[in-house]
C-alpha cells in the first residue's frame, strides 16, 4: 500500500521499513511483464533481517549495517557517520565529486524538476522514497547542521536591524546565531540516518 513519506519519517524510531512496494503501484511495463501479476511480488523484509541490521527504507537491505546493541555502539556508529560526512566535503578525500556536491548542497531550489527526469522515481510509480530529492534533502540538512554550522556571515547587520523584530518568532528553529547559508532549518531534522551508507 503506497503511503506518503515525510522527511522527518527517517528519524522515527521504529523497526519496520518506511515503505513496502506492490507491483500494482509501479510504472506499467511492456510484455512480458505487462501486468502486476506477471512479476514476482516484493518479499517483505524478514523479521530476522530487521532485528539484525539497520534496514528501514524498503524491503531490501543492501548495506548490512549491524544494528547497535547498546548506546555506546550507537554513539560509535553515529560518530563514524559524521566522520565520513566530514570527509565527504574535503578536497583530500573527495576531490573527485566535491564541486557538484557542494553546488547541489548549497543551491538546490527544491523545485522537484529533477524528479520528473528520474527513471527510478518514475518507474516506482512516484513513490516518495525514490524521489531524487528525498534522501539528498536529508543529507543536505545534515550538511548544514554538521558541516557548515557557521555563523550567518552578515550577523551583526541582522542583529542591529532585524533581530528585535524577529525575537521569539523563530526561537523554535534555533537562535539566529545558528543560521547557516541554507537559512533556518526545522529542528525536527533527523540527527542520524541509520540506513544511509556509511562513508567512513
Amino acid at each position: 500500500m503506497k503511503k506518503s513519506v515525510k522527511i522527518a519519517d527517517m528519524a522515527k524510531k521504529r523497526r519496520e521499513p518506511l515503505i513496502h512496494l506492490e507491483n500494482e503501484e509501479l510504472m506499467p511495463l511492456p510484455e512480458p511483464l505487462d501486468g502486476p501479476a506477471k512479476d514476482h511480488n516484493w518479499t517483505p523484509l524478514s523479521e530476522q533481517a530487521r532485528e539484525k541490521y539497520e534496514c528501514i527504507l524498503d524491503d531490501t537491505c543492501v548495506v548490512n549495517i549491524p544494528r547497535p546493541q547498546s548506546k555506546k555502539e550507537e554513539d560509535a556508529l553515529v560518530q563514524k557517520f559524521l566522520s565520513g560526512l566530514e570527509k565527504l566535503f574535503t578536497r583530500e578525500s573527495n576531490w573527485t565529486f566535491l564541486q557538484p556536491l557542494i553546488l547541489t548542497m548549497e543551491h538546490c531550489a527544491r523545485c522537484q524538476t529533477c524528479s520528473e527526469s528520474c527513471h527510478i522515481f518514475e518507474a516506482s510509480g512516484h513513490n516518495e522514497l525514490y524521489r531524487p530529492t528525498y534522501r539528498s534533502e536529508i543529507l543536505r540538512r545534515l550538511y548544514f547542521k554538521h558541516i557548515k554550522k557557521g555563523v550567518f556571515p552578515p550577523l551583526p547587520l541582522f542583529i542591529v536591524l532585524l533581530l528585535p523584530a524577529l525575537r521569539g518568532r523563530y526561537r523554535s528553529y534555533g537562535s539566529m546565531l545558528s543560521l547557516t547559508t541554507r537559512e533556518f532549518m526545522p529542528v525536527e531534522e533527523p540527527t542520524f540516518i541509520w540506513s544511509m551508507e556509511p562513508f567512513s
Partner: protein
Amino acid sequence: MAGVLYVCFYACGLVFVVACVVKAVSYAKLPIHLRWELYPVPHEEPDRVRHGGSYFEESDWWTKSVRFNFLGELKYMAAEIAFLKALWEFKRSLWYRSYAFHLGLYLIISTAALVLLAALLGLFAPGILAGAAGLYLHWIYTVTGSAGVILSFLGAAALLQRRLTDPELKNYTTPGDLFNLLFFMLVLLLLAAGYALRPAGAPGVVAMAQGMLTFDLSLRIPGLLFTGLLLGAILTAYIPFTHMSHFIAKYFTYHSIRWNDEPNVRGGKMEAKLAEYLTYRPRWAASHIRGDGVKTWADVATTNPAQEPQP
C-alpha cells in the same frame, strides 16, 4: 534619516558584491571533478550537437584543434537566463510563477540602472535630463519599475501558494524558503505602497538616487518608503548567503559540470592539477581504500588495498 539609508545602501551593496565574489571564487577554486560526460554540449559544432556527438568521437582528436562554438553556447545561455528555458521544458507548471517572479526582478534591476543613469545625467548633464531624452527615460523606468514590482510580487505570492499547497513541494519546504518569499513580498509591498502614497513634495526616485550619490542629508524620505528601501537593501545583502544566489551556482553548474569537455593534454594545466590531486591523502577507512593519512590517491589507484594485510 536619509544618512542612515545611504550608509545602509552602500554597506549592503558592498556586502552583496563582496559575498558574491567570495562565493564565486570559492566555487572556482574547487578541484576538477569526475565528469558526467553528458553530450551534446552547446559549444560543440552544430552538426555534432544535432546528433548528440562530441569532438571526442573523431579519430586522433588530440592532434586536431578544437573549435569552440561560442555562438551556440551564447544562444543556450541567453534562452536560459532570459526565459528560464529549462524550467519551461521540464516543469512548465512552475514556470509561470517562477518566470513572473524572475522577470519582475530583471525589470527592477533594469529600473535601478535607468534611475542611476537619470541621476547621473541630472548631476552632470542636466540639459539632457530636462529634454525629451529625460522624458523618455522617465517613462521607461516608470513602466519597468511598476511592471517589475507587480510581476515579482505576484510571482512570489504564487510561488508561496504553490509551496504551501502542493504536497510535492510542501514536503521539502523549510521555514527559510517561506521566509525568503515573504521577505521579498514585504519589501515589494512596502516599496510600492511607500512610493504610491508618498506625500506631495516628497522626493522621487531620481532625486533619491541623486541624494545617495551626493550624500544629501537634507532629503526627507517618507517613513513607509524609507522602510521599504531599508529592507530592500538588507534583502540585497542577504541574498548571497542563501540558496537564492543560484545565479552564481548556475554558471558553475553549466560551465564546469555539465559542459566542461576540455581535453587533458600532455603538459597542460589540467594535467598539472590532476597530478596534484593524486598526491592528496584520502582518509576513507573502507577496505578498498584504507586511507591511513600516508597513502595517496595515486597509491590507492595503483594498488589493491583490499588485498593488503591489515595492520
